[in-house]
């Protein structure tokens, strides 16, 4: 019998392998540098948004505003940042600080993060609509060239995803701050008694989420070249789904950065796979829900086996 712990850690990678194998089977021509590049191009912004969501989930909260936030970043970058770079950078920094402020507010008043971030999603969307009432704007050339950068042999999205996953893994899983941050999700009381500031931890985690949200918005704009306030509305769901597919737990600070990136790749690939299967676009969202439920069911099975052994 395989060790259930090992099985659970391998589940995200197995899911990715299954989806990848199925895609190659249905459409063998995708098994190429060009094919993978095309299928996975949106994996980078999704992976960055997933990492942002993972930081929030680490401290037992949930961010329902990340999608509109990614949209807002795109809007700022395509208008202000493109026109007056200094002002644009200041606006993006303000966005990250706003995330930290929200984290502080949620912590100090012990508010439910779902309600606050749901309200916040309206604020982001409103600001984005005010700056750019209808789709338009233009991506700064630098972003465009970064996102279309081509690496020999291995498609760029895969390289980028591995680099992102590795950096966050090092920061969250191997540093002492990472241990405290994950502990904040596991047992905040114990850490407070040990003298760590939970306020500070939460604020830093929220600001990290804001930072990765900004990166996600910038990379998405590099691909789409023009901005739209609503372009990333689905990202809230994608990011939560990505963390789940990647083996993260919602309570207890048990998260996995590599898993989250793999989960995002799986999601991006699942979209392409469903198109190859000629599943009607009506069932696109539904199929993603079904994938989520299947993965969660498998994990429940593994957990119950773990409890028995």
């Amino acid at each position, binding site marked *: 019998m395989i060790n259930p712990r090992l099985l659970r850690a391998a589940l995200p990678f197995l899911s990715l392998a299954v989806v990848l194998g199925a895609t190659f089977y249905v459409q063998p021509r995708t098994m190429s540098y060009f094919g993978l590049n095309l299928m996975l191009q949106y994996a980078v912004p999704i992976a960055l948004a997933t990492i942002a969501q993972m930081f929030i989930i680490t401290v037992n909260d949930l961010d329902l505003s990340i999608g509109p936030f990614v949209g807002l970043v795109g809007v700022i970058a395509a208008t202000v940042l493109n026109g007056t770079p200094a002002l644009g950078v200041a606006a993006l920094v303000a966005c990250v600080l706003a995330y930290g402020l929200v984290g502080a*507010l949620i912590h100090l008043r*012990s*508010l*439910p993060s779902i309600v606050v971030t*749901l309200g916040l999603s309206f604020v982001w969307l409103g600001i984005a*609509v005010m700056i750019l009432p209808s789709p338009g704007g233009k991506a700064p050339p630098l972003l465009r060239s970064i996102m279309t950068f081509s690496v020999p042999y291995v498609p760029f999205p895969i390289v980028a995803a591995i680099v992102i996953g590795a950096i966050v893994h090092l920061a969250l899983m191997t540093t002492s701050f990472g241990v405290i941050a994950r502990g904040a999700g596991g047992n905040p009381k114990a850490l407070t008694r040990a003298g760590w500031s939970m306020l500070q931890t939460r604020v830093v985690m929220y600001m990290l989420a804001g930072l990765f949200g900004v990166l996600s918005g910038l990379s998405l704009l590099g691909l789409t070249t023009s901005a739209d306030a609503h372009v990333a509305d689905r990202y809230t769901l994608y990011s939560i789904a990505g963390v789940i597919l990647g083996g993260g737990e919602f309570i207890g600070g048990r998260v996995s950065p590599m898993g989250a990136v793999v989960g995002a790749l799986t999601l991006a690939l699942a979209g392409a796979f469903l198109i190859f299967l000629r599943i009607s676009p009506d069932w696109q969202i539904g199929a*993603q829900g079904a994938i989520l*439920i299947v993965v969660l069911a498998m994990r429940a099975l593994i957990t119950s086996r773990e409890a028995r052994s």
Partner: protein
Amino acid sequence: MTALRARLATLPWLWSFAAAVLVWGLAATVTGGRGAGEILTSALAFGTFTVIVGLGQMLVITTGPGNVDLSIPATMTLSGVIAMKVMDTESARILLGVAAALGASSIVGVVNYVLIRLLRIPPIIATLSSSFLVLSTAISYGRGLRIKPPPPLADFATVRLGGLPLVTIAILILSLLIALVLKRTVYGRTVAAIGQNERAAWLAGLDVRRTRFITYVLSALLAGVCGILQSGFSGGAALNMGDDFLLASIAVVVIGGTSVAGGRGNVPGIWGAALFMFLLVTMLNIFGASPGIRLVMTGLIIIAVITAAGGETQTR
């Protein structure tokens, strides 16, 4: 003064009504009193739909932290689409359509509970995952032409009795019933008990599983009712008809004085909050605010209200 404050603390729903009256007054001042009655009537008409889903969401939230039903918008859409398609504009098929729509809604509630129970996942994730499937079902089933509601249903959803919309009166009665259920029945007391301390409720011999099951099915059923009525009111079902109701259903519960931490539900507050939310948008419209400003203000006010009410949950 302290006695008054203590009395006010037992009536958390007063705040939402006070806020509604304040916003109404502001709007009426700007128009110079013209149309103040009409504003209130339309607030009641539109607010009623939010109240229906708010009642279900309130029951779910009262069963404790982490319990939120995110599948309400998708369930509304599914119910509206099924009702319109089964009725097919024929008055004789109204009952059949209602039965089909509510049957489908209750299946969503059962599925939600099964996911929470079998997969042991937080209700947020369970209802989110199921909502994807529900929405896809609605999109796939409802593809094609927009079907008008049969005239009697449209009349029922829009007619007014002495200035009050008929639906508002019906939902007022339903609210009274739910308030009674919450206060006086074993089921209602169990909902509150689970929200306060699930383990204690279980040790006291209360049927936690059955109560939770009923709660999720009720929430889905109320979303279904709202979907049918909304389709009747606005001349048919639309695939995005549930979109506004995700934030609204949670916001009216929270603003209405129900404890987000669970264990303390509040029915009258939902009415005050629903009126407040609609009047707020009306006021911003009268002020000539752009859609962007309206969105920002709605978001900020919800955050402000939850911040003001948030400290109270800790003192329990």
